[in-house]
């Protein structure tokens, strides 16, 4: 719009300062993850912004190796929570994608589903905390508390609306001529869906699945309510990391936070193109 030099200077100054602000918290955690215990917090006057003697001790500590400085021992390592986060997020994504994609195709092509779209929007609006009480009771009854598959099932249902709306917009965008041609050739509807539509939709399926995976991976509240010990996920485990001897285990927590933060950031940047579509439930396409 405006192209004058003062405007360009202002633009760079404004953008760069906001970029800096948006990076500081993440960088602080990243630097904390490599700090030895002595630099964790400012006891004297000066605070170390960059680790003076960087170390991998925090990561080693998380996986059960005790170091010379951190004499506290963990009652369990970070391995199991990482596995739990992975299993529940991956299988939750599978459930959401399978049920969401097929329902989206049913609605997009045959108008089936009745009031399903509205129900799914409302499911998205409800705060999870307000629907979790009966789910907790049901899960206890079914023996699904503190299991990765119990968690995956809830994730699948909670994120299915996203898979549904994303895939519906992709199906709506797809030209129907190819499907029609196959129908004329004598293919059944199901065969057309399976052999022609789905393979064509591979990129859309991949980005929707990654989007849903990020959502599942980012959960804290549901895992907090439905897991107790064996299958706690990374955020729940992270919150429980503190000891009576050192108080908050800043460095170890930061290291774990870094491990948890990396996958969604990388995947999110990879599917940047479809983020708007996903976040607005397909109402907006970039």
């Amino acid at each position, binding site marked *: *719009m405006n192209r004058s030099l003062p405007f360009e200077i202002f*633009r760079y100054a*404004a953008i760069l300062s906001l970029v800096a602000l*948006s*990076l500081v*918290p*993440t960088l*602080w*955690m990243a630097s904390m993850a490599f700090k030895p215990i002595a630099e964790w*917090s*400012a006891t004297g*006057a000066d*605070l170390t*912004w960059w680790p003076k003697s960087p170390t991998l001790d925090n990561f080693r500590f998380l996986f059960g190796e005790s170091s010379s400085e951190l004499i506290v021992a963990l009652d369990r390592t970070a391995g199991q929570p990482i596995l739990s986060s992975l299993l529940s997020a991956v299988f939750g994504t599978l459930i959401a994608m399978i049920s969401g994609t097929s*329902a989206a*195709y*049913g609605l997009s092509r*045959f108008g*089936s*589903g009745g009031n*399903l779209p*509205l*129900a*799914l929007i*409302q499911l998205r*609006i409800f*705060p*999870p*905390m*307000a*629907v979790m*009480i*009966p789910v907790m*009771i*049901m899960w206890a009854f079914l023996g699904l508390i503190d299991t990765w598959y119990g968690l995956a099932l*809830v994730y699948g249902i*909670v994120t*299915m609306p996203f898979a549904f709306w994303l895939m519906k917009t992709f199906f709506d965008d797809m030209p129907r001529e190819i499907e*029609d041609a196959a129908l*004329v050739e004598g293919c*059944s*509807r199901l065969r057309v869906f399976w052999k022609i539509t789905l393979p064509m939709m591979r990129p859309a399926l991949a980005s929707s699945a990654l989007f849903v995976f990020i959502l599942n*991976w980012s959960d*804290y*509240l549901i895992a907090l309510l439905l897991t107790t010990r064996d299958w706690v996920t990374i*955020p729940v485990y*992270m*919150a429980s990391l503190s000891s009576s001897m050192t108080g908050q285990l*800043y460095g170890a*927590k*930061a290291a774990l*936070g870094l491990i948890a*933060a990396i996958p969604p*950031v990388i995947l999110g*940047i990879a599917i940047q193109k479809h*983020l*708007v579509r996903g*976040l*607005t439930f397909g109402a*907006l396409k970039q």
Partner: protein
Amino acid sequence: MTVAALDTRTEAMEHEDARDSRKLGFWLTLPAQLLVLFIAVFPILMQVYISLTDWSPLDGIDWWQAHQLWNTFANYTDLLEDNRFWSALGRTALVMAICVPCEFLLGLGLAILFVDNFPGRRFLYSVLLVPMMVVPAVAGYMFFMLFQSGGPVNDILSFFTGSPVRIAWLSDPDLALFAVIVSDIWQWTPLMFLILLAGLVGVPEDQLRAATLLGASWTTRFITIVLPRMKTIIIIALAIRVIENFKVFDNFYIMTGGGPGVATETISIYIYKVTQQELIWGYVAAVALVILITLSVVSAYAIKRMSRSRELSR
């Protein structure tokens, strides 16, 4: 070509195809329908039942026998007098009233700066999206560290004031609320930015150029051309943030646990705490139901209005 090919199909084939489609449509939507039934319809009925009793998981009574503890509408009348509930609701509204406009204005400002191309645009755009993709619980922990009394926020303040600052951000009620709001704005401004930028880029350039030639100033162009075109997008962006902000739990709970006292207790944290600490689930079920019913009514109305205005604009 395809149209001609379709015309050659016989009526009987058409009929058979329509039946097949209906059948396939039914089976394709079935899993989703069952899942919704499983997590929404059935649990909500269960919640209605429990909300009319004094049931708690510690009573040793199975939930389906909760009718032994029937108290009719006592939970609902208690709710009217529950100050902690109402103040949590008010606090949630306050947080929303601060966060959403700040996120909107910052996001819009950034989006305006990003509309036309400049060197480094793509890279800076990606970098700006990072906060949004950080796991909210981890973001909560980041801000927990930043706001420690020996943490970097105080360190920066000390640098500027020249004397050591040791503010205990998270243990002062007002400052704690400020800190959690900052963390929310930090995390979700990128979302506003992303959506609003997508909207701004979609404004037809020829109209803007024509207006410029006619001598319209930047402000006039923005108000008369850009804003009206962005109306739907702005509503969508605001609606998403209002919905999400109402649910806020993760970063707040990690930073302060709802404290000090109840200073940062939002509605989700309130329900969580009553569920986990006071264990009166019959009452919590009533609280949750009131929220769900209110939200359903409001959202059904909003969706109806939005789809109607969309049809009109077509």
